[in-house]
């Protein structure tokens, strides 16, 4: 068990050569065993590294490769150059699905961020009850499938309680998931319901880092809650908000489950989000090459958004926690 601490000097080339230098995050190991831990580290890192290379790095490279091929799973991939990308650019359904996805993301992120912020501030300024925090998190325990099914039922045109209430108030029933205009906002709001509590808790974590003294001092000066929110909370929360925003936008772009169980892309492609279209191209029509090309497009869009957000919010200056 004492392999590492008694490591011989022969291990020096593996990182211990500059023994006197202490890098940040590096351990200063006492007792003369200042040799590198190369062999032990290799053992410790091996499973994770295998998983990383096999299921993350390699698939990423392979996905890019497949996007230049015609591939139906049954016969070997055949190199076709930019044909898939050419097709994509001229595919109206692709552009439509990109548009629908963006529409979904804008509604989902807009409503979710504002609501999560409101919930987080209420949890900070009104009460710090762990019970309320727990309640707010409960929808997150549901799968997207369950959340989708429940809301499908609540919003059902004929028997759903949502429409019963709307009808009871004297309005016309709304075909939430069966109507081209309503479907995407509805799906976006269903996912807000499931995720907003989690986002709120992440923001709450950021709020807890703001010293209470600042609020006390502001209160002594006669500042209102509203003013404190804009002058203290928002400026100090900004870095955390930025990180949370980047994460939720990336997650939001990957909407699939809710669409799959509620509308399956319909009506008339109105909810055919990019992921759903990719899935259909691959598993419905066995066009893996084309599906891969669209995945690459999605990756490019996401990377661009991430970089842009990072720049705009200067999120790199701090981190969560």
């Amino acid at each position, binding site marked *: 068990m*004492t392999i590492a601490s008694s490591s011989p000097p022969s291990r020096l080339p593996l990182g211990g050569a500059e023994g006197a230098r202490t890098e940040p995050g590096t351990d200063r190991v006492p007792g003369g065993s200042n040799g590198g831990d190369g062999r032990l*580290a290799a053992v410790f890192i091996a*499973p994770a590294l295998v998983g990383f290379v096999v299921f993350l790095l390699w698939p990423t490279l*392979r996905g890019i490769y497949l996007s230049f091929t015609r591939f139906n799973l049954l016969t070997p991939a055949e190199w076709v150059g930019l044909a898939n990308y050419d097709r994509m650019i001229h595919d109206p359904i692709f552009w439509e699905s990109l548009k629908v996805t963006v529409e979904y993301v804008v509604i989902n992120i807009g409503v979710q961020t504002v609501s999560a912020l409101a919930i987080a501030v209420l949890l900070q300024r009104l009460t710090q009850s762990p019970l309320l925090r727990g309640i707010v998190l409960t929808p997150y325990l*549901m799968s997207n499938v369950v959340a989708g099914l429940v809301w499908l039922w609540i919003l059902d045109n004929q028997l759903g309680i949502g429409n019963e209430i709307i009808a009871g108030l004297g309005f016309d029933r709304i075909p939430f998931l069966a109507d081209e205009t309503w479907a995407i906002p509805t799906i976006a709001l269903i996912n807000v319901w499931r995720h907003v509590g989690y986002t709120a808790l992440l923001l709450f974590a950021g709020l807890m880092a703001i010293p209470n003294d600042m609020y006390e001092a502001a209160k002594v000066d006669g500042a209102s809650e509203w003013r404190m929110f804009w002058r203290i909370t928002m400026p100090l929360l900004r870095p955390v908000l930025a990180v949370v925003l980047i994460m939720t936008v990336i997650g939001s772009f990957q909407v699939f489950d809710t669409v799959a169980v509620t509308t399956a892309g319909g009506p008339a492609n109105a909810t055919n989000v990019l992921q759903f279209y990719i899935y259909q191209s691959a598993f419905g029509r066995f066009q893996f090459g084309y599906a891969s090309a669209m995945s690459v497009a999605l990756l490019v869009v996401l990377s661009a958004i991430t970089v842009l957000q990072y720049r705009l919010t200067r999120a790199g200056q701090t981190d969560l926690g």
Partner: protein
Amino acid sequence: MAAVTTTTPTTTRVRPTGRRPLSPGRVLAWTAMGAIVLVTLLPFYWILRTALSTNSGLAAHASDPLPVDPTGTGFARALGLESTKDAIAQGGAGGGLKFWRYLLNSVIVSTLVTACQIFFSAMAAYAFARLRWRGRDQVFALFLAGLMVPTIFTLLPNFVLIKELGLIDNLLGIALPTMFMTPFAVFFLRQFFMNVPHEVEEAALLDGAGKVRIFFRVLLPMASAPVLTLAVLTYITSWNDYFWPLMVSYSDSSRVLTVALAIFRAQTPQTGVDWSGLMAATLIAALPMLALFGFFARRIVSTISFTGIK
């Protein structure tokens, strides 16, 4: 306790949190909070109410707040306990639902993913945080970059790979891609290990413990709180995953609950959706996670609240 509060009354009583005058603002804020709680919890009640009703009753009294014709047949159908004839008579599908099989599949996949992923990620995190080796920072930067690759991107190539490995329609095929690590788990645990004071390790080293022993006997037990939170969240994520299992499983042998639920919904009989059975099924599918959360809620909520885990 009492002594502390009496000796320092000024510091603890600066902001009396107990009774504050109810200003209009506070009333408004509490109303908003109440509305949030209502929107959060009502769907859960509606699942229960629907699951305990009969389909014919639901059609007749759609807005009745209580279960209509209270019955357990929805649950019986969801669990596959009702005969085909009865199920069809109740507005359900005739096809059998092997609920226990799906439940077991979900348990196997989630347990495998959680146990292995956390363990391997913790080992890697330790190597990144506490061991010194050449190329460490470069390898870690690579892992961090992995954090940016959206899961959708790796799904198709991973499917091809799993197919080549002959693991389609196999529980191991569902578990494998997330079994070894996620960049986030490594990142999160590394953060924790970096913050453990060096003295802890030095003391153990002086006692003659090796680094392997230090990891298993000292650091890993110290990390039990973050590890537990991470484990519960990983379990929930894995349990709720739909897209990947949908790709990989084709038959009952590897079908997990989320996929089974979507299929249950798709098996629409001629009369319309079996809402009672479907809501009973969703409740049964969600119950294990609600129980798991109920058990660890306090710890998880405070870990997320104070560290911003993600």
